[in-house]
């Protein structure tokens, strides 16, 4: 299945195409919430109950999962960074980075899945620069 249904708060729906990497929130009680659920539903990141989180995984169909063993009190981070580089040239690139991690008042840890599947660990996503 590649298309999932997102049920918006206003009652409308839309189809969401499965991402190469998607998240799975595993809770302390053994249950889990998948961004792209087995029931065909898409879930937003803000639906995650961080207070009961046991671990947060980024999963891929063929690559090993990337696992964050949850530290209570942290704030979970997940977003996509999109870059459209060298617009209007033969070298134009559209890039999506998968960014996830956690932060507290004192520090931040973000893992960035790069287009080639490599992972960069940083406290500052803005330090990552892509280009020729």
């Amino acid at each position, binding site marked *: 299945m590649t298309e*999932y249904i997102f049920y918006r708060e206003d009652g409308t729906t839309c189809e*969401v*195409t499965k991402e190469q990497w998607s998240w799975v929130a595993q809770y302390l009680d053994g249950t889990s919430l998948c961004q792209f659920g087995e029931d065909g539903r898409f879930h937003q990141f*803000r639906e995650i109950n961080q207070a009961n989180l046991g671990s947060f995984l980024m999963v891929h169909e063929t690559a090993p999962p990337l696992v964050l063993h949850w530290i209570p009190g942290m704030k979970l981070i997940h977003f996509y960074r999109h*870059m*459209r580089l060298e*617009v209007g040239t033969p070298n134009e690139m559209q890039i999506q980075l998968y960014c996830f991690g956690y932060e507290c008042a004192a520090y931040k840890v973000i893992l960035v899945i790069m287009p080639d599947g490599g992972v960069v660990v940083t406290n500052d996503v803005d330090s990552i620069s892509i*280009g020729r």
Partner: protein
Amino acid sequence: MAATVTVSESNGSGETVTASITNSNMGSTDAVNLVASNFPITAGGNSYEKWQRFRVSDLGGSYCIKNLRVWASAALAAYSTHKTNARESAYDGAQTYGTPSASDRSATYDYTQTMPIVQPTLPNLGIGGSLAGEITTAVPTFSDYLLQQIQTTASAVVGKTITMNYQYDEIA
């Protein structure tokens, strides 16, 4: 699907909006996707202003779009400057559309900055007048205007090509 985000451009006195540009070429006319060699800028003059915005036509399953950044690949050649209102601090807020002009209206529309040539470390284009703004609806919904103008002196020479880069974050 993921959010649908394009870079739009506004032209003309009636503000004709092109939803998705294919290039950001600048020249001696007010036109989208122009061929720069057909509209050279006379040394000592300015290009027509570019009025561009991020345009979100569909959020898909995502919650918001934010953290907009723009930068160029390099500086222009000597005696030419690439001006913009994009800035990481002391942002002047959203500008109200004005018919693109080849006059220097930087004082009015705050494009007094030189376009950055490295990836900004902070957002430098606002949403709703704020660098911390978010787009949470798509009807479509636009960012603030990104204004650009090339300004030259009489000593300016031809031959330098630079390209534009655009970046945003999507919370799904």
